[in-house]
């Protein structure tokens, strides 16, 4: 992973903005920011700590070429995909997607912060969803709880016990799913082949950028 990081750093020298424009989904919008701060003010998660850089600051940091600060930032993972910034931006920058794009890029080149819980959820969710084509909610939850090891998992499990029981009682959580007896697509093979091809193409496209 990290050699990909070096490769990119080399390829774009000190032009981090260009790197983001070409490598991060929707990155080409970063330059359109006019620094009004509406996105940051509109973000529902801007109220709590741990939100190191709001969206506009991320944009400014990118322009200022602060590669490490951006790639290591927790900011993007605070996004709840509420699309407030997206619909309000006076420059029509799709801020939500830009945040996602930068997050994905940071993760792809191995620079994303370690043990970032939302990033972990993202990974887990995707692998869970693509394993059988549909989400297995129980396994998803489990893998989340046990990400920090067995003990923590049990502890967390106990904390969440009431929640889980409530759902089970309400018939909205099927314990049997834990045993993999959850929802599945029939053509799992097809799905996996399809995704493999998609990832291959994606990698090829991204690699082609900034080369010439």
């Amino acid at each position, binding site marked *: 992973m990290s050699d990909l990081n070096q490769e990119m750093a080399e390829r774009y020298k000190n032009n981090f903005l260009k790197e983001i424009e070409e490598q991060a989904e929707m990155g080409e919008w970063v330059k359109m920011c006019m620094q009004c701060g509406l996105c940051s003010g509109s973000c529902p998660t801007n109220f709590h700590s741990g939100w190191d850089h709001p969206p506009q600051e991320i944009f400014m940091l990118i322009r200022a070429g602060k590669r490490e600060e951006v790639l290591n930032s927790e900011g993007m993972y605070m996004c709840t995909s509420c699309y407030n910034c997206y619909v309000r931006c006076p420059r029509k920058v799709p801020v939500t997607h830009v945040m996602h794009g930068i997050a994905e890029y940071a993760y792809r080149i191995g620079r994303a912060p370690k043990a970032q819980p939302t990033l972990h959820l993202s990974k887990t969710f995707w692998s869970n969803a693509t394993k059988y084509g549909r989400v297995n909610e129980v396994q998803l939850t489990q893998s989340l709880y046990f990400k920090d090891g067995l003990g923590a998992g049990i502890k967390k499990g106990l904390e969440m016990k009431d929640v889980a029981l*409530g759902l089970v009682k309400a018939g909205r959580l099927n314990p049997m799913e834990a045993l993999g007896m959850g929802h599945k697509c029939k053509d799992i093979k097809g799905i996996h082949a399809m995704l493999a091809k998609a990832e291959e193409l994606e990698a090829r496209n991204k690699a082609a950028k900034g080369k010439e």
Partner: protein
Amino acid sequence: MARKEYAFYPGCSSQKGASASNYLVSVESMCKTLDIRMTEIPDWNCCGASISYAEAGELPRHVMNARNFALAETNLPGQDIVATCAACWLGARESKERLEHSDRLMADTQTALKEAGLAIKVIPEVRHMVEVLIEDLGYDELKKPVKKPLQGMKFAGYVGCQTNRPFGIAGESFENPMYLDKLIETVGGEAVKYDQKVTCCGGALAFSEPDKAQGQIKDIIEAAYDGGAEMIVTPCPLCQANVEVYQGQINKRYGTKFDIPVLYYSQLMTLAYGGSAKEAGLNGNVVQARKLEEFAGK
């Protein structure tokens, strides 16, 4: 022959036994009354949801949705795809727009689909259940079957994010959409005024960083109470789950005494149409909606 037919995309949470199964139950009852036939897209798959952004690249996400488009197109030709889940609708509709605006993306997508023996000719319309109710039937049509108006009950219509932004329901404002309030009034209930109607519930952060998300959930529930609501109504499974199931934890964390039922619009409609508690999936509510159970019992 039903008066309306759609390709149904329930999504992962709205399956039997899944976290929004009661949504599914009530939607089925509602549609029965309204004579809407919803045919599930055979072997549909997950939309990827917004949260998969970090792991999944652009193309893989669109390809997942493209597969559903292809399946719907081949098996249920000419039918719009209708999702009940806000995230499924948003994810699918986003993919539709991006694929239609980028030949490169579309070409790559087709190449990938071929691996699963599928192809897209024309991407069907992707719509949310609420859109269908409002745009294809209209409030008047929705009112006609009302047998038992929810007289004197006060609801906070909680629209949340993804049925509202960035696409939303035609003609509604992002900041203060009225459709949910109108639906509540259509079935005889009272929609209270409160200022957290479109506040985010924390979305996926409710799982990953509950301590952060639950603050927002608290604000929403508080505002609903302040507005005089007895119950909260929402069109989105994630909103429903987040606002409902964490009330216990929030009470512990903040010393509040929340105990407010959180329902789907489809549950209200089913009841107003004379459906039973079971048909409305009331048994699926973690915070029991006793008042509605009584009402259904009558």
